[in-house]
């Protein structure tokens, strides 16, 4: 049997750090980085005698996330302790939620590879605290514990096993990321680990209704590794089954360098987390009014923006989709369009050159260093004829390195388009003199010869000459000859 005979079943547990100012149970900053153990206090270091007090924003943000993903909100919720020992977990328990998560039974809609809409159900969203970090001591051969991240608030979003391919998994995660960014509850910086996913993968023969044994890849923090990891696991599991083996339920670590997964834990260390309600915290009871107040403050979400772009700016569904997939791209588009008044051009620049550069540089849209004003100015400069679109591409490249006024860039680089007739005529005459064969060709009816001449002229002027003017002037001059 081959891969086509198997169905892939994937579920994601996504952890998103919430963008609150302070930690979930103490008043320390959540800011990323900083000298080790400087965003800490007796509470997040779990000194004896200290007690947690829940940050009100954490509840609010989790409810926002729940509402934006069509969840039911649990109106009588609580915090539970999940007990296990690890050096990055100072209390030896993580305060999380067990049987009454704040949100449950949600869903989001994504597109599958065929471009069809499909619904991925969300089992639950709960709040919990992040753990600290272990650094390796380069000299002493030990590990060093930094608790700056311990107690940073997280929501864990658990999907049902509704995902059927690595591409769907990527689309699901992109969609989720985009929603969390839109509702401003997480900055979703995957490179800083503020958005990461545990990926559960299993396979089963097509037609089989029972789920296969799943493996879990922990802490994946790029789309690329998620896709590669899933593909690897699908192949590994199918090969195993085809060879008469069995998939074992285990936790895996994906290694990007070797492109394979490794088993993470001793099997003998079967975990028993001994969940129980945290007696240091009190119940969370959310009124209808509280929930409705949050619902009212939800911003416009991607779906409705997409519809609006198609209507208001006449964008194609594809373009509207691509733009609204990211809050940052979408905001850049709207702001640029408001300034320059040219939606088509804004959209094209963002979806072609800017997206290409992001891809090449492996950047996320929120890392675009320049502003809508800058992009709007580039568009205006083209419209005025100050620069050609060829130059404009170079300006945009330059904006990624040096986010400053485009006028300043073209002036500094000397990229202003030559539209002065005298100067253009001088170049045209010079090129005609150097290329008599092309002149002859044109006269003999080969119109393409003009293209060659214009090309030569552009080369001579390093792309700054106005191509329309060149074209016109070559024809005029040859006709005079």
């Amino acid at each position, binding site marked *: 049997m081959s891969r086509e005979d198997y169905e892939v079943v994937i579920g994601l547990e996504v952890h998103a750090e919430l963008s609150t100012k302070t930690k979930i149970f103490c008043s320390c900053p959540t800011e990323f980085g900083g000298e080790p153990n400087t965003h800490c206090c007796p509470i997040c270091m779990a000194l004896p005698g200290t007690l947690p007090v829940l940050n009100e924003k954490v509840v609010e943000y989790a409810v926002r996330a729940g509402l934006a993903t069509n969840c039911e909100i649990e109106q009588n919720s609580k915090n539970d302790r999940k007990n296990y*020992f690890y050096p990055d977990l*100072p209390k030896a328990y993580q305060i999380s939620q067990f049987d009454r998560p704040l949100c449950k039974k949600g869903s989001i809609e994504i597109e599958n590879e065929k471009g069809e809409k499909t619904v991925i159900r969300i089992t639950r969203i709960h709040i919990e605290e992040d753990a600290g970090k272990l650094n390796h001591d380069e000299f002493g051969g030990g590990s060093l514990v930094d608790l700056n991240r311990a107690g940073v608030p997280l929501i864990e979003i658990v999907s049902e096993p509704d995902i059927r391919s690595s591409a769907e998994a990527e689309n699901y995660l992109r969609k989720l990321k985009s929603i969390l960014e839109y509702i401003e509850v997480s900055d979703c910086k995957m490179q800083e680990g503020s958005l990461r996913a545990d990926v559960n993968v299993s396979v089963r023969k097509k037609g089989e209704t029972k789920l296969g044994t799943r493996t879990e890849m922990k802490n994946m923090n790029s789309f690329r590794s998620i896709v590669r990891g899933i593909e690897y696991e699908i192949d590994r599991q199918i090969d195993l089954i085809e060879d008469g083996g069995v998939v074992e339920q285990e936790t895996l670590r994906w290694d990007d360098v070797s492109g394979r997964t490794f088993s993470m834990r001793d099997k003998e260390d079967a975990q028993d987390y001994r969940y129980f309600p945290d007696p240091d*915290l009190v119940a969370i009871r959310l009124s209808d009014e509280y929930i409705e107040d949050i619902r009212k403050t939800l911003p416009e979400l991607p779906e409705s923006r997409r519809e609006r772009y198609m209507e208001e700016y006449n964008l194609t569904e594809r373009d509207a989709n691509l733009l609204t997939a990211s809050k940052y791209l979408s905001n850049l588009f709207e702001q640029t369009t408001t300034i320059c008044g040219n939606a088509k051009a804004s959209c094209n620049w963002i979806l072609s050159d800017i997206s290409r550069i992001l891809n090449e540089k492996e950047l996320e849209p929120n890392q675009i260093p320049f502003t809508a004003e800058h992009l709007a100015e580039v568009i205006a400069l083209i419209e005025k004829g100050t620069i050609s679109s060829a130059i404009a591409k170079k300006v945009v490249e330059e904006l990624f390195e040096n986010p400053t006024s485009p006028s300043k860039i073209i002036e500094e680089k000397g990229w202003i388009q030559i539209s002065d007739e005298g100067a253009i005529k001088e170049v045209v005459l010079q090129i005609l003199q150097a290329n008599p064969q092309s002149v002859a060709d044109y006269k003999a009816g080969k119109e393409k010869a003009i293209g060659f001449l214009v090309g030569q002229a552009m080369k001579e002027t390093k792309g700054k000459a106005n191509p329309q003017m060149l074209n016109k002037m070559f024809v005029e001059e040859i006709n005079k000859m």
Partner: protein
Amino acid sequence: MEIYELTVHELLEKLDKKEITKEEILASYQNRINEKEKDVQAFVTITEQEAKEEIKQKANNPSKLAGIPIGIKDNICTKGVKTTCASKMLENFVAPYDATVMEKINEAGMVSFGKLNMDEFAMGGSTEHSYFKKTKNPWNLNKVPGGSSGGSAAAVAAGMVPWALGSDTGGSIRQPASFCGIVGLKPTYGLVSRFGLVAFASSLDQIGTLTKDVKDSALLLNVIAGHDEKDSTSADREKEDYTKALKNDVKGLKIGVPKEYFGDGINTEVKEAIEKVIEKYRQLGATVEECSLDVADYALATYYIIACAEASSNLGRFDGIRYGYRTKNYENLKDIYRNSRSEGFGAEVKRRIILGTYVLSSGYYDAYYKKAQQVRTLVKNEYAKNFAKYDVILTPTASNVAFDIGSKINDPLEMYLADLCTVPVNIAGLPGISVPCGLNSEGMPIGFQLIGKPFAESTILNAAYTYEQNTDFRKNKPEFKN
């Protein structure tokens, strides 16, 4: 009368009348510690020298309690002074912060004379489970002072501090108070902040007072009670002046006496003493009726399930990484965890961690922990039923008087069963006070317990005060018998 024999309110009167000075108070207690500590062994850390300096610094503090000494149970965090929980695990631990109650004590200008011995991590009822020393009962040095706040009770009874703070998870203030012939008050859960109290069982722990008489309890409760934003379980209520509740009048007070606390488990001399208390209350104009609180056994079982479950989780943080004892014997992380914990905790602590881990573990949670949480509701309901009829409930504090050191240490279950009268109060989060009511034939103190409705400290304080003012038991003094 010597200064160290006076209650705090008597000290305050004399200070007010300029009959004594703060320096004399300090000197009197220092002498007393020098004289008696070698016999009683109540302190883990003595800070009387620091106290001298502190008194000078606080000379201008306008608080009326400025300069009054106090002793602190060694599970309450004190900035810059060791907080050991009487455990090898925390032998050298110095908290970089003050517990909320310590902030209040300091604000009131009081000076701590040191940290008082206890059962390790407050687990036990005899103070024999201290890693450092066995505290003796000032009435008879061969007997235990009770526990876990045994050091606090013994120090107050011996006159080494005028009063002390303790903590009570299942009777740890009331039982040693009863064993040492003093007054012990466990406030309603949530009345006093737990921030800075090293947790044993978070849903049961409560800081309270050990004092020579009831008026001092009210005075000290005035200092430590109050809402604290750092403790989510702290009650947000208006402050009361508990001394105003002391009216020396119980006419019309309705007292219920549950028959379940007069069974075989209770010593005959204790029962007789309680009968006399009942008689006294009747004479003073209170109505006393027998009632039923048929949850005693359930409550005790529930207590050990919940307390140990919470403790097993609360004590996970002692892992040899950030503070506390670290084994010398390690090669890897696992060794640090297991050896530090195995060497750093005493037998009783380990016993409770194992029980707590067991009842929370997969497959047993529903049979034990979940049931215990339901029983807890049952116990609360039973109390509520009784409080619909009665203002206070009266029981013995302990099933017997203080026992001989070493006589029960190998029988944990028997030790646990002795907490029969005090434990249900913590299960329901109610206030309870133990008041001396005589001596048995061997001259050991007996105490009775008054239990009130949630936050009805005023009611039980007044009932206790009225009894105390109309009897002479508070005048008994320990004899340091050998």
